[in-house]
């Protein structure tokens, strides 16, 4: 009995050591660390921003509208006299809720779909692959726009639409990894033990394809932020009165020819720093896992 238990325990230990080794590799990557610090900063802003900002990000103060940056208002004030600095800090909150949730929906759906496609192959695989091709022929923003017009803009719709459009892309990555795994001996052994297909897919194969899934979903998080910001900018994403960055740029960009650059520049830099940070993190993880 104890002999039979030995191999899986040793195997689990080795797997854990391997993950520690990978984690050390990831932490040694400079691009990862830079990205991680910036990301951490925005996550803190999202969590605690409202408690620490100097002004109420929603409070109008029309007498002090469109003031340039000063000691009192570090990033100036917008058309309604709201403090831009406070709005930029609190603006991290909604996009950092919607984009990760959308990525989660896409990852869960995509992983399940990819496992089924890769494991069963045949007709299911062929049919889903064609559907994936058709969906990929349309840019995410346009698919999302179509669905949001049809269903009406709401945060839940944004999450689901981006999640659904990302699922086939993630499924394709998972499928490729599963195709390689299903030929290995441990899958054959599980079949000989008469394990069910569900058990083999989710208990045997899934843990071995977590690496590519992690990389793909981090990359997708970057694109989810991209998509949410873009949808908010064109009015179909996060809705007012949120101090969301894309929304603020869309409300204020008509003013820039008048020289009121501070009402859009800081929001723009915030979006850019967030997406670049996520991308650096993804690059760091991908680099460490591929070695």
């Amino acid at each position, binding site marked *: 009995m104890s002999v039979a238990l030995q191999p899986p325990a040793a195997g689990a230990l080795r797997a854990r050591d391997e993950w520690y080794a990978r984690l050390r590799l990831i932490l040694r990557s400079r*691009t990862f660390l830079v990205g991680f610090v910036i990301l951490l900063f925005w996550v803190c802003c999202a969590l605690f921003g409202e408690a620490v900002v100097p002004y109420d990000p929603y409070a109008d103060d029309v007498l002090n509208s469109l003031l340039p940056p000063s000691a009192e208002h570090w990033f100036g004030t917008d058309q309604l006299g709201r403090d831009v600095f406070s709005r930029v800090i609190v603006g991290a909150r909604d996009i950092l809720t919607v984009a990760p949730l959308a990525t989660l929906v896409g990852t869960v759906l995509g992983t399940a779909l990819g496992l089924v496609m890769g494991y069963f192959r045949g007709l299911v695989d062929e049919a889903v692959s*064609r*559907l994936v*091709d*058709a*969906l*990929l*022929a*349309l*840019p*995410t*923003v*346009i*698919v999302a*726009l*179509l*669905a*949001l*017009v*049809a*269903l009406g803009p709401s945060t839940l719709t944004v999450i689901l639409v981006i999640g659904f459009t990302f699922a086939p892309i993630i499924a394709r990555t998972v499928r490729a990894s599963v195709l390689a795994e299903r030929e290995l001996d441990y899958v054959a052994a599980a079949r000989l033990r008469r394990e069910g297909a569900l058990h083999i897919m989710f208990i045997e194969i899934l843990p071995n394809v977590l690496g590519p899934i992690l990389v793909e979903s981090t990359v997708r998080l*970057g*694109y989810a932020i*991209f998509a949410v*910001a*873009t949808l908010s*900018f*064109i*009015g*179909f994403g996060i809705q007012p009165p949120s101090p969301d960055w*894309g929304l603020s*740029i869309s409300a204020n*960009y008509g003013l*820039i*020819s008048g*020289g009121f*650059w501070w009402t*859009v*520049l800081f929001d*723009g830099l915030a*979006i*850019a720093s967030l*997406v*670049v940070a*996520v*991308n*650096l993190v993804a*690059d760091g993880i991908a680099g460490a896992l591929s070695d």
Partner: protein
Amino acid sequence: MIGFLAKRAGLSLVTLWLLSVIVFAGAQVLPGNLGRAMLGPFADQRAVDQLNHEMGTDRPLLVQYGDWIAGFLTGDLGQSYAYRAPVEEFLLPALANSAKLALVAFLLVVPLGILGGIVAALKVNRPLDRAIMVFGLSATIVPEFVSGIVLILVFGVWLQWLPLSATWPTGADFGTQLYHLLLPSIPLVLILFGYIARMARAGMVEALDADYTRTAVLKGLSRRTVIWRHVLRNALLPTISVIATQTAYLIGGLVVIEVLFHYQGIGSLIYTAANKKDFPTLQAGVLVVGIVFALASLAADLLYALLNPRIRLGSA
């Protein structure tokens, strides 16, 4: 070769058909009662019924779908609800405008991206390579409206080198049009640069490492000849498919760029139709975008097959 082409064209047709179903589902099935969706919750029921009857949306879905596709194939894209005019009347000029903008962006980004990839590959794993790759990666993920706003601020408002609006005065000559299109095309260039540079670099690194390159060097050919005649030719093949695949994302970006720069293209047409709940226009616009993409990827495969002797001469 013929077999490969036939198979590829067949797959494109299947993709296009699925795409039309998705678009139809999005624009005509999802909203439920289309007349109600367009007129709003407070409109009179008789007006809603009247509109549904005018648009034919009170008929069975299969009939509507068949009618829509048949119309599309004969160049009848339906009647715009917002403009009270046939959709093709303003969709085609918008498509031409977008093509101009996309062409300027393409003509800028393809040489720049390939050049960036080649330079990076020749300095592989050195600081310059890292710098180009990190820049490309970062530029790819920054939304177009963000880079667009910064570019407008710097070149339009502060330096005043370039106009803020992409729309040129009527009757403007080629040079003036180009002058107006330069600024809006840069955000698209930034998005695509990273992909193209990355593919060109990967192809180059592989080709530089290949046996035929070593043979060429050992034969005593100069570095210039080796790179021009042996490396580049093999390295750039995969880059072609990436360039075509990116067309779709270019069009996705057009929505935002055209709104930001006040330009009358297919992107701003889709945006306006979305805001006005003009479903016939929206539906036609989105399907046209899909068709453009499917054609571009088919063209890329053809080009790839023509340039790659293994497919050109093979029986695949």
